[in-house]
């Protein structure tokens, strides 16, 4: 079986979410594309993990996302390979490119899937922000497009036989395109992204001020976590929109979700309920989130967050 993977890197390192796609493709004949001049190490890693042909688009013009340029490059590669499946992560890139390509091929597409096995084909996709999930039955087609939510599948490799890296120079008329990349507002930080983080600490309205979120950032940085926030906290200006976890914010899927002063509205639960372990810390013993958590502490977050920071540091220093 042939599979085409839309691979991704962050600051040159192959993303764990891409390794999760490789794991799902075990034993298949896999090709992948990866974009950007800085992706050499990631391309080599893909080959090492058994991707037979790694198309590395080395041209620096492809460093920044351009929907038309990326789609045309992937389209040509897919047409040449004729894979049964095109896989991507439900990341900013995959969320844009996977459906766009599916429309270009007029093919079936299911996005943000939380279960995927290819032989026999079994796919589950969440609906209503995970308040329900459905088994997906595809119509038969030459190629099916699927994106997978990060942290849903175990990371893995395709095979023990290393593949090769093919440096690719696609021709695309950037200056003639109706879309022009202008700039980006900041460089990619070393903090993990909420949607891909394995640990998230998250704060609610009880943090009271934007400055107070610093105690959560300090804790997060000690343990390599991302920081999230409830809708109430975002609506009151305590945290940016990009930090909102919930049905009208980000859907997250970490191993550990620690909620500080978050009561647990339905729409918040929808965004984080697939977390493997949930910890609720709230001074209100009746906060609904305690009913959905694995561990709970009734107490003052301003006291507990710094204490937890100390305890985590102790543990990590021991390891």
């Amino acid at each position: 079986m042939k599979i085409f993977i839309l691979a991704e890197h962050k600051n040159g390192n192959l993303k764990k979410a891409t390794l999760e796609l490789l794991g799902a493709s075990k034993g298949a004949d896999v090709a992948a594309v990866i974009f950007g001049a800085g992706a050499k190490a990631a391309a080599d890693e893909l080959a090492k993990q058994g991707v037979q042909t790694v198309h590395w688009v080395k041209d620096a013009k492809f460093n920044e996302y351009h929907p038309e340029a990326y789609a045309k490059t992937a389209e040509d590669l897919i047409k040449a390979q004729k894979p049964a499946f095109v896989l991507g992560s439900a990341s900013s890139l995959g969320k844009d490119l996977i459906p766009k390509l599916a429309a270009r091929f007029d093919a079936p597409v299911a996005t943000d899937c939380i279960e995927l096995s290819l032989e026999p084909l079994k796919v589950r996709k969440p609906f209503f922000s995970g308040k329900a999930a459905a088994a997906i039955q595809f119509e038969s087609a030459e190629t099916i497009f699927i994106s997978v939510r990060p942290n849903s599948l175990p990371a893995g490799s395709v095979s023990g036989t290393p593949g090769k890296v093919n440096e690719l120079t696609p021709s695309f008329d950037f200056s003639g395109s109706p879309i022009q990349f202008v700039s980006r507002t900041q460089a990619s930080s070393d903090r993990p992204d909420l949607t891909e983080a394995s640990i998230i600490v998250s704060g609610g309205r009880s943090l009271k001020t934007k400055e107070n979120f610093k105690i959560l950032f300090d804790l997060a940085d000690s343990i390599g976590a991302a920081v999230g926030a409830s809708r109430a906290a975002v609506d009151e200006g305590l945290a940016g929109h990009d930090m909102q976890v919930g049905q009208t914010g980000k859907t997250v899927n970490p191993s550990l979700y620690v909620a500080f002063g978050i009561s647990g509205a339905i729409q918040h639960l929808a965004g984080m309920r697939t977390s493997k372990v949930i910890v609720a810390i709230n001074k209100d013993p009746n906060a609904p989130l305690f009913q959905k958590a694995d561990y709970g502490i009734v107490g003052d977050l301003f006291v507990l967050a710094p204490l937890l920071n100390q305890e985590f540091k102790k543990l990590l220093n021991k390891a």
Partner: protein
Amino acid sequence: MAVKIGVLIKNVPDTNTKIQLKGDAIDEGDIKYVINPYDEFAIEEAVKTKEAWTKAGQTVEVVGVCLGPTTASKSLRDAFAVGVDRGVHILDNEKKAIDPRSVSQALAKVCQEENFNLIFAGKQAVDTDSHSVATMVAERLKMPHMAVISKCEFSGTESVQVERDIEGGIKEVYKIKLPALLTANKGLNKMRLASLPGIRAASKKEIKEVPLSDIKAGYKVSGWGLPPERGKVKMIEGEPPAQAAELVKRLHEEAKVV
């Protein structure tokens, strides 16, 4: 010549809805439907853009396009109350179009006929969460698109500069020539409240009902499930320093997540 702005609008369960199953299907009994929250931002941006272009001397019409059962027209009426001029409702009482492939086909057909200069949509619908349909409509129309935008500034009716939100709080800035399709993220704006005259005018605005065209489905749902319930919460008692130590110990030794 009049300038036409399209807005893709979906009627979805309110985000406070508890989803339950009835047999093999979603129990529709207690579900209250509202305009998809991200579509509210799309509607507001369309109306704001109309206002700005009208001020600059253009004749502008904002058209809402919606696919769904008869009851879904409510979201078009609600959009009329805040300034959308008329609507096209693709009627699908049998819920035949449920996946991105089929829905994007049906919407693209209407958009093609309307020949929009600009299309706004929400970045995703909060029921199907596919984050796909708008992008696929643009692709089918061979129209450039930019998704997940939190800011847009037009240079006349020729081009637009947008900020697109990506992971890690980063924003990418692009300039796009119209015609184009833009999908709205939270942060773009806040939908205005309907005024009384707006609500009155809404009931008189035209909704054109069109049948669902021939569509090809991409998938069907072969079974629903609800997320598993968690075990009973383990409350950690004691003084704060002891609680913090105990929690970290449990996360390390028992849950094995750190």
